[in-house]
């Protein structure tokens, strides 16, 4: 162990570079993970906070954020007539693109009835829309485009006044935009249209039974909110998981290479000393132990630094680009340490091979 420590600390710059390399790799893995976790939270934010525990969607639609849903006419009264339904809140929703400062900004437009609900759950500033030419904009989106209360924005050819700024309604891809349902109907030229119903069962009623009863209505697909959240996360995960996994794999490989390289050169430089140890009777296993201990130390120090880096980088990213949410779970930290450990073991392979192939006589040759 003593040998391992001496070997490692002998060249401080190299040690710093190797710890830095592993730290970068671990940071990358953590940021990716945290980004995914944050995205999942942002994706389900509306479902997490809106009224009701059951969602009625168009037949064939099982996501909130995937496809445009359009329910059959008179769905509201049909649903309310179902046994066990306490309230059915209609919303009309649609992805639209805003042109803000020459930038295309996709937003998820939600038309809601201000009396019944389905709108923003936290208004940071201002109030709910009272007329059909008023909207509530996501606060982060407003900040990014220097928009404030009482400013005007153009939405699909019509001018609206911003009367409220909502909190917790942003994501890096889309933000939410709320207006009265009647305003959305006329904007989308779809009078009376309903995309989803947010249904609250009568208290004491079994949710799954109400879901089954609602599913008897023609042309609808009824899910619990939890099911829909899972579907939305799955949908986005399918789009983003491949690139994200690619990056995590690359980060992991880089980590192995960095630690491997450092331990390898440290071993090569000390080749003669290892030869002496072998010549005086040390078994290969002891020498492997020395090499592995070096790799372990560099990786662990790197992983811990990486965790610190990740927190710093996440704060920096979120400060500069508030639309990104990066969330770390304790499990991620364990993963990062495990990844560091994995890097160390894989990295110890190169130098261990060098030592194994070392002839004890080597030391006497020079």
């Amino acid at each position: 162990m003593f040998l391992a420590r001496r070997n490692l600390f002998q060249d401080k710059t190299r040690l710093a570079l190797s710890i830095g390399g592993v730290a970068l790799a671990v940071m990358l893995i953590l940021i990716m993970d945290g980004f995914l976790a944050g995205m999942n939270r942002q994706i389900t934010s509306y479902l997490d906070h809106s009224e009701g525990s059951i969602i009625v969607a168009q037949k064939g639609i099982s996501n909130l954020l995937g496809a445009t849903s359009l329910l059959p006419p008179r769905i509201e009264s049909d649903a309310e007539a179902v046994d066990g339904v306490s309230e059915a809140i209609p919303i009309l929703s649609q992805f639209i693109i805003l042109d803000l400062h020459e930038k295309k900004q996709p937003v998820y437009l939600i038309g809601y009835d201000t009396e019944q609900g389905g709108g923003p759950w936290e208004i940071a500033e201002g109030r709910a829309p009272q007329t059909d030419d008023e909207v509530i904009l996501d606060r982060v989106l407003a900040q990014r485009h220097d928009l404030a209360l009482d400013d005007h924005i153009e939405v699909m050819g019509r001018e609206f006044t911003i009367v409220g700024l909502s909190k917790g309604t942003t994501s890096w891809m889309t933000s939410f935009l709320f207006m009265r349902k009647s305003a959305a109907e006329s904007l989308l030229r779809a009078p009376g249209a309903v995309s989803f119903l947010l249904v609250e069962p009568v208290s004491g009623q079994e949710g799954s039974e109400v879901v089954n009863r609602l599913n008897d209505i023609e042309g609808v697909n009824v899910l619990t909110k939890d099911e829909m959240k899972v579907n939305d996360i799955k949908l986005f995960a399918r789009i983003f998981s491949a690139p994200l996994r690619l990056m995590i794999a690359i980060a992991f490989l880089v980590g192995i290479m960095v630690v491997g390289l450092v331990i390898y050169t440290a071993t090569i430089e000390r080749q003669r000393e290892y030869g002496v140890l072998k010549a005086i009777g040390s078994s290969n296993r002891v020498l492997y132990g020395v090499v592995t201990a070096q790799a372990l130390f560099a990786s662990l120090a790197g992983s811990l630094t990486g965790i610190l880096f990740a927190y710093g980088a996440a704060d920096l990213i979120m400060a500069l680009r508030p639309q990104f949410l990066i969330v770390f779970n304790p499990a991620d930290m364990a993963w990062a340490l495990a990844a560091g450990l994995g890097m160390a073991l894989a990295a110890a392979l190169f130098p261990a091979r060098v030592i194994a192939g070392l002839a004890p006589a080597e030391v006497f040759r020079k």
Partner: protein
Amino acid sequence: MIRLAFRNLFQNRTRLAISVGGVSLALLLILALDAIFTGVERQTTAFIDNSGADIFVAQKDVRNMHMASSSLPVTAIDEVKAIEGVEEVTAILYTGNMIVVGEERTLAYIIGLPEDAEMGVPWKIASGKEIPEAGEAIIDERVAQKSGIEIGDTVEILAREFKVVGFSEETTNIVNSIAFISASDFQAQRGNSGVVSYLLVRVKPGVGIEAVVSRIEQEVDGVTALPRASFSGQEARVVKDMSTDVLAIMNSIGVLIGLAVMALTVYTAVLSRRREFGVLKALGARNGHLYQAVLAQALMSVLLGFTIGLAFTLLISAVIPRLGLSMTLEISRASLIKVGIVSLVITAFSAILPIRQIAGLDPAIVFRGK
């Protein structure tokens, strides 16, 4: 000095492999991501580019299709038709929905085509019909393969069943695909017969497109008209604007990784040759010469890494379509230039540490027997 760099580089194969591998991975990260997004841009504009229309007319202030919604009153069709210079108008209906086969759901943009549609029809048919009639649908070939659908099978779109009568090609991307149904079915399902989504306009031969665009915007209320190329450019911008921030973060991470790996390898390479550099110094080699050797060494590994990274990106972009994945990678010139610059930056920075080391090297070191 170049020879020295060359020898230094190739003498230790493992180290070379690690440094070149590290740089190529880092550059691959940047190149592949760029290629994915360029591919997505190309795929999202495919429908517009191949629509055959000269002009797209949408609801006022709507300038693209992806994640957008446009509703025009049907009266707009005749109004546009009446405009001087317009030869043909095809009104399409459009919404985002799902293609459902059993438990399998695929996101798709649904296009409702009139029976006599001249524009906006699937441009490349793998098999089957080109324009769907009532009760029929044309879906993307890859989606069909993935869900195990044959011609004549039924799929569920917009909450009703359709018989698949054709397979189209080039109508899918990483996020969703395009499916075509008849306008009458579309309207029946949406329950709103007074509205269409976009008007695809062809102008008479010899008539200036720009002139017709401005006439449409002047004479028809509540519409935005754009030449096809601008409309397609706006569509690509949606993807670009959404991905810029993500790309910037990923790119900087790629640069950092490349830097770390290169700095470490060049540093250790120089470190292990410290004695040789000392000898050279003792023999009278000037620092400038030694710097050149270090820089040349770094440049060579980075160039090798760049070539390998590019080769891998090309390999990935060739393999992915064969795997049946709905992703296309396309390497753009801008991305190549960017990665080239990044490589040079990595070279320059990774040489700083070793150069400082050499500068501080005492020629006498060689005599000390260290």
